[in-house]
């Protein structure tokens, strides 16, 4: 065991090097947030005199907004998976008549600029009283994640061997039981992947946040950051501090979720 680990060490090093390059802009962001100097242009490579003023400001002003973002993002994941997983299964495995048409509609829905949807939703939300509400944002954010999740899940589910489901059906299980007891567990990896991206889409949404909220009571953190920039004095340190701070719960979520992506989940099930 120990021997394998040493042999794999070069991979770890290579991975770290690549990650370092990929994440340099992230480092630069944190670096800037620690240098609350007046001129971002003068930021040094390493924060020699780090100051946490920006973080204090970010925590005091943005904590509530982070909570909103988290609630919206988690809500979007749940709603998306509930709607998308059965649909993806149906599209992948049932010989339904209008499947081609549904697929086409899903793809077209992904081609529409977000701003077009946001503008149309505003009027409807206004009539329905969904402006400035977390459910309203969840429904809106799902416009990106539901079609996406269906397409992704369907692509993964196509490789589920029909024999798996048929075996359960022969045992007398209805469609839903077969779905819950066979399809969902076997598709765990892909469901987590789709959920991750639903989370990320909702977390980083700006268009719907800015269009469908007006009050400070329901304000996702992207919008909170944005208001820093439209204030008279543009100060980047709190922007970067908020961005850095706000990503911490999300990072934890990502690491946690990724742990559950298992190798060869399907392979095991087929045996």
């Amino acid at each position, binding site marked *: 065991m120990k021997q394998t680990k040493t042999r794999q060490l070069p991979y770890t090093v290579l991975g770290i090097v690549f990650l370092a390059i990929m994440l340099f802009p992230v480092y630069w962001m944190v670096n800037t947030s620690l240098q609350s100097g007046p001129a971002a242009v003068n930021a040094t490579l390493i924060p020699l005199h780090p100051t946490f003023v920006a973080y204090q400001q970010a925590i005091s002003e943005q904590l509530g907004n982070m909570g909103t973002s988290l609630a919206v993002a988690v809500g979007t994941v749940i709603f998306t998976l509930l709607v998308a997983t059965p649909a993806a299964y149906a599209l992948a495995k049932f010989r339904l008549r209008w499947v081609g048409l549904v697929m086409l509609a899903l793809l077209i829905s992904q081609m529409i600029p977000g701003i077009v949807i946001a503008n149309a939703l505003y009027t409807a939300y206004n009539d329905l009283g969904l402006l400035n509400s977390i459910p309203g944002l969840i429904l809106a954010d799902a416009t990106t994640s539901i079609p996406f999740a269906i397409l992704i899940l369907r*692509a993964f589910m196509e490789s589920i061997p029909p024999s798996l489901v048929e075996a359960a059906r022969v045992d007398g299980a209805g469609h839903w039981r077969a779905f819950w007891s066979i399809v969902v567990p076997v598709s765990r990896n892909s469901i987590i992947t789709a959920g991750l991206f639903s989370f990320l889409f909702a977390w980083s949404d700006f268009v719907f946040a800015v269009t469908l909220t007006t009050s400070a009571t329901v304000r996702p953190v992207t919008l909170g950051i944005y208001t820093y920039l439209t204030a008279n004095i543009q100060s980047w340190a709190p922007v970067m501090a908020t961005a850095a701070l706000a990503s911490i719960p999300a990072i934890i979520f990502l690491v946690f979720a990724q742990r559950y992506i298992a190798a060869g989940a399907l392979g095991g099930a087929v045996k």
Partner: protein
Amino acid sequence: MTAIDLAAAGTGQAAPKEPLRRQRRLSVERIAQWAFLAPAVIYIGLFFGYPIVKNVVMSFQDYTTKTFFTGEAPWVGFANYVSVIKNSLFSTTLINTGLFTVGSIVGQFVIGMALALFFKRRFPLSGVLRSLLLLPWLLPLIASSAVWKWILDQDSGILNQALLFLHVTPAAIPWLSSPNVALISVILVNIWLGIPFNATILYGGLQGIPEEQYEAAALDGATGWKAFRYVTWPNLRPVVSVVLVLGVVYTLKVLDIILGLTGGGPANATQTLATNSYQQSFVVFSFGTGAAISNILIVISLVFTVVYLRLNRRAIDE
């Protein structure tokens, strides 16, 4: 495989001629099957139907700020489309959109695939590193595009300072301020942004390939590149299709990153159909023209998708 049903769209499979009883049982079955799809279909209809119709209607109207208040928008037929296509900017934005999309997709996909294969080997810390790869997606684009702007600044940006220090380049490169370089810079940043998406989904696809297939292939002497060619690639095909199609569709409508970095400039060097549509609508308040451009964008997106899926299907059939 994703392609197949799509190509069948419109043809519709004929209902099989069967005895009545069988047909009735079948229709109960059908209803049960449609129940899986119903929530999604209803949601899509509600949340996408209205915006699409509205956008199409708008593109045939003289839709201005006044329209919002009065509701009056005179019909102008194809005038908005004609003025868009006649404008000399149209060919520029078309070329930029093409270059931006092709450049971004090739870069994202190749690097993403390489990373997915790399992470497939489990090594110490691989899980954590894989999670951290998604970090660029957690940063609000408004923050990351500002950071990129500083990094790419011609005079004080860290990238030019590093390149000059290492003597890679004799003079500072005007990353964002020269019309000849700006598009490349924007593509590079967009590749950076797209790598996590490609790598993560392709990685998920790789995990679904049964290990037995590799073992069997290895017995036949297929390892390394051959294993990729004959085991990985065919198995990954449905996922690759989705990643590429969605990648192109998403890239065609990229707006934020371009607005954040260059705003379509300098001198329209990074102006794409998406940014131009945004500008027509929200900068010049010519909403009809903006809608026309976004509809053109949707049609291009659609044509690409259908053509790609058909070609892909043919490739599978052969």
